[in-house]
Structure formats: structure tokens, C-alpha cells
């Protein structure tokens, strides 16, 4: 069975964050290409990214690892990551491995106002 992941650019929010919608499964097959794309963006300079995870169905340890690497890259390059809409299994997985404690979350409605 194919489990795809799409990261769709939503635009730049009023607070300056470039927003993406994550849709599908961030798993051992899809997370590496997502990571490479986002690391390239963060490496280009101080970048503020926000991920809307309301459409994220599945997250595994490779996906969590990608998030950790992005958090580390953002810190190294003076950028910032924020998340909205984390729920269901992805939220449970981030909670089980305690990574939820270093994730900054915004309310979905507040993020674009």
C-alpha cells in the first residue's frame, strides 16, 4: 500500500512565518525527502516555518527524527519552527518520545489572523 506525504505551501502569514500544510503519512519512506527540502530552506538563512499538521495522518520515528533534525537546523541557523493542528496518532507519537516538550505550537485560527 502506498502512503504518500504532501507538503503544500500555504503562503506567508502576517507574522512572517512561511506556512505549509502537511498531508498524509510522514513515515520511513517519505520523511527523508521532506527533511531534505526543509533543511535546504532553513540553510538559506534565518527562516521561520509553520507546519499545519491537521492533515497529517501518520507519523513514525523517521518522521519524528526529521522534526528533531529540523529543530536542530532551525536553532543552528537562527530560524524558528512552529506547528499547528497536531492531533491523533502523530501527537501521541510525539508525546510518547517526549519530543512534544520541545515543539512550539500555535492555534490554527490564530496562526493566520
Amino acid at each position: 500500500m502506498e502512503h504518500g506525504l504532501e507538503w503544500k505551501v500555504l503562503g506567508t502569514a502576517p507574522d512572517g512565518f512561511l506556512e505549509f500544510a502537511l498531508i498524509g503519512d510522514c513515515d520511513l519512506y517519505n520523511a527523508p525527502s521532506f527533511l531534505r527540502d526543509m533543511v535546504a530552506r532553513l540553510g538559506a538563512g534565518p527562516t521561520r516555518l509553520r507546519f499545519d499538521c491537521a492533515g497529517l495522518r501518520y507519523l513514525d520515528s523517521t518522521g519524528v527524527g526529521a522534526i528533531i533534525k529540523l529543530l536542530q537546523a532551525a536553532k543552528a541557523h537562527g530560524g524558528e519552527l512552529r506547528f499547528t493542528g497536531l492531533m491523533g496518532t502523530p501527537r501521541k507519537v510525539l508525546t510518547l518520545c517526549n519530543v512534544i516538550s520541545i515543539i512550539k505550537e500555535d492555534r490554527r485560527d490564530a496562526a493566520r489572523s
Partner: protein
Amino acid sequence: MSQFIVRKLIVDERNELFDAQGMRYIEFPSDFKRIRDYAAQVLQDCPEAFLEDGLLEQQLSEIIKNGIKHGNRSDPSKLLRVWYDLRKRVRFIVEDEGEGFVDLDDWNDFYRRRQTALHNQDFDAFLELASYRGPKSGPDDGGNSLFAALDYWNGGMIYSEARNKVGVVRWYSVTR
């Protein structure tokens, strides 16, 4: 003051979690591309309440991935053996043909430092320790599956003496 407990991975060949009597059995070739399919196949007639909206499949996939990728090095000629019991609770024994989790003691030490940073709310240190990188870790490895597993498998997670076989169990609060 909150209680600070750090769990650890345990080696215990004679643990009851390795008693496969009455368990169902299936074996898979080590095809990396089919890891999630294998987990879904094992769970195809699992009671809905145990699935927890995909969380069980995710956690079982991690164990299968560790066996196929790190144990069997994705060599399709090597088998991954799975014993499973989905009655009243979920229990699995997963065995690969690899050299075993030789870095287990190092991992336990890393995990203790990681959880200490978390307990102390030292989030900069925690970010540095968020993923485990062993000598054989690949660039795409998440390095965090066992952190979640220790919490998720609430009835135990035990390794065999050869460290190429793991037994896990998860209990549920509502008995069916």
C-alpha cells in the same frame, strides 16, 4: 517534588515474554519497502479497541523496521519471525537473523542522560539528545523509536541474550 524514573532496555532470555506457547506465527522476507504492509498484515484481525487509531500499527512497524533494517540489513534472504497474540492484550515476539542490538548498554546510558535533561527542563540539552546516534545509524534513521517503545509497551520490552529477539506486551485498561 516529582518522582524521576528512568526505564531501561533489559536482557532476559528466560523472561515469560519469550514464551511463544499459544501464539500465532508468521514470517517475512526482509523487504524494506513492505515494512508497513507486514505490520498491517499481522494486525488484520486485531480487535478495533487495541488499534488505538493506528498507534499499534505504528509501534509494531517500528519493531519490524528495526529487525529488517538494523538486524537483517534489508537482506531479503533473511527472515523476520513474528509471534503474536491479540487476545485480551497485544503481545509480540520479533526475531531477526542479525548480530543483535550490540549497542544496547550504550543506548541505556544515552536514554538516562536524555531523560535527565528532560526532567531538569534543560531543553537545549534535550534537543541535542533527542535522537540516538549509534555507530551503525544511517542518515535517515530517526533514532527515537525505542524512546517511545519503552513507554508504549507498558507490560514490558525484553531482549534475548543474543539481542536479536525482542518480546513486548501492551495491556489495556478496559478488559474486553
